[in-house]
């Protein structure tokens, strides 16, 4: 009986020693496995998180309305034309921002040197989309975006100038009066801008715009000095917009 108890004790002791010896080995094995697979596991985890995030990104994230007030500032600070516009923009996945802009541009100016008078007042529209460059950081109070627009205006304009006198045969004179000249103008815009929250649902933003004229109804005698929504100056120019924006509560 005693010898039986002794042998059991020996077995238990040996088992304990074996267990004690085997534990660090197992821990070491685990550690080794963890080290070897940690990157893979983390990568998988990130992929899963991304997939979950993707699934969780709501497609339609709201509408906002904006008012472009840069045209009013332009007139107030000595510019010779004024314009104003409103915009409606949708937020899709906090990444794609389709937008419609409608406005009205106006000018009535006479050059002091040449005494040529030009006037027009016409609506314009732009349709396009912005791309949020910082869509991965929705927690930030603003974002930088790039975008494009197609613009259009169905304008009419007037030119009046002093009678044109032939520089060689002075008795030949031609009156210069062109009224209600119709012209449909289409242009493309490249946009880069910034939008930032100022208070709750109110944002402000500005954008630089490169305009490139695509199509214009040709007139033999005139080209408009100013095109509503496009601006002044030839086939290309730069523009600026300063917007006050409100996120609609739906």
């Amino acid at each position, binding site marked *: 009986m005693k010898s039986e108890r002794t042998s059991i004790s020996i077995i238990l002791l040996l088992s304990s020693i074996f267990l004690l010896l085997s534990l660090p080995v197992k821990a070491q094995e685990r550690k080794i496995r963890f080290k070897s697979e940690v990157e893979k596991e983390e990568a998988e985890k990130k992929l899963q998180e991304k997939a979950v995030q993707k699934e969780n990104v709501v497609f339609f994230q709201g509408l906002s309305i904006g008012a472009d007030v840069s045209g009013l500032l*332009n007139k107030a600070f000595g510019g010779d034309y004024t314009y104003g516009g409103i915009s409606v923009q949708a937020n899709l996945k906090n990444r794609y921002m389709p937008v419609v802009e409608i406005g009205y541009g106006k000018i009535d100016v006479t050059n002091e*040197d040449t005494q*040529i008078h030009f006037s027009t007042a016409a609506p314009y529209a732009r349709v396009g989309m912005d791309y949020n460059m910082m869509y991965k950081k929705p927690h930030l109070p603003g974002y930088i975006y790039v975008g494009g627009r197609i613009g259009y205006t169905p304008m009419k304009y007037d030119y009046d100038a002093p009678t044109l006198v032939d520089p060689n045969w002075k*008795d030949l004179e*031609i009156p210069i009066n062109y009224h209600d000249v119709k012209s449909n103008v289409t242009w493309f815009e490249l946009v880069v801008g910034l939008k930032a929250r100022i208070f709750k649902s109110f944002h402000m933003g500005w954008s630089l715009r490169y305009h490139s004229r695509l199509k214009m109804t040709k007139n*033999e005698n005139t*080209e408009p000095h100013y095109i509503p929504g496009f601006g002044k100056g030839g086939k290309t120019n*730069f523009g600026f917009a300063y917007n006050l924006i409100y996120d609609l509560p739906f």
Partner: protein
Amino acid sequence: MFLFTIAISLGLNSCSESNCALETVPAAHFDFLSSDMHQPLALTSEITVSASTMIRDSIEYDTIYNAISNINSLSLPLSYSTKTTYIIHYTDLLMDKIEVTHRPIPFVSEIECGVLMFHEIEDIQYTTNALDSIVIVNKEITNEERTNFHIYYTIAE
């Protein structure tokens, strides 16, 4: 931000102001060519060019070039009527008359630049006392310097 907006806005406005064309009086450009080789040539003898146009049933003359030599082209103004006549005097007795029928087209695009007078050439009639022929190569006369006519002469051996 507000001041920045104003600065940008005004800055961009000033950037958009266009430059006016340097050529403010569009003219018809004639190039002289040899009849046989169609190569540019220079008139070595002195010539005088006068121009005339019809103004209210009377013809008015103006001398454009006086006793110029060694030229290979001419830039001649067109009148604001529909017909301009040029006379090239080679000598006291030798001259050619060139009658250009054209349509004046006033053009304005920038209020800073004034009104330009473009023309569209409709026809040309001429005598062949010294010159051989004239060919219209470009009907549009604008503020861009482009050759409108080739005048062909036979080179004396």
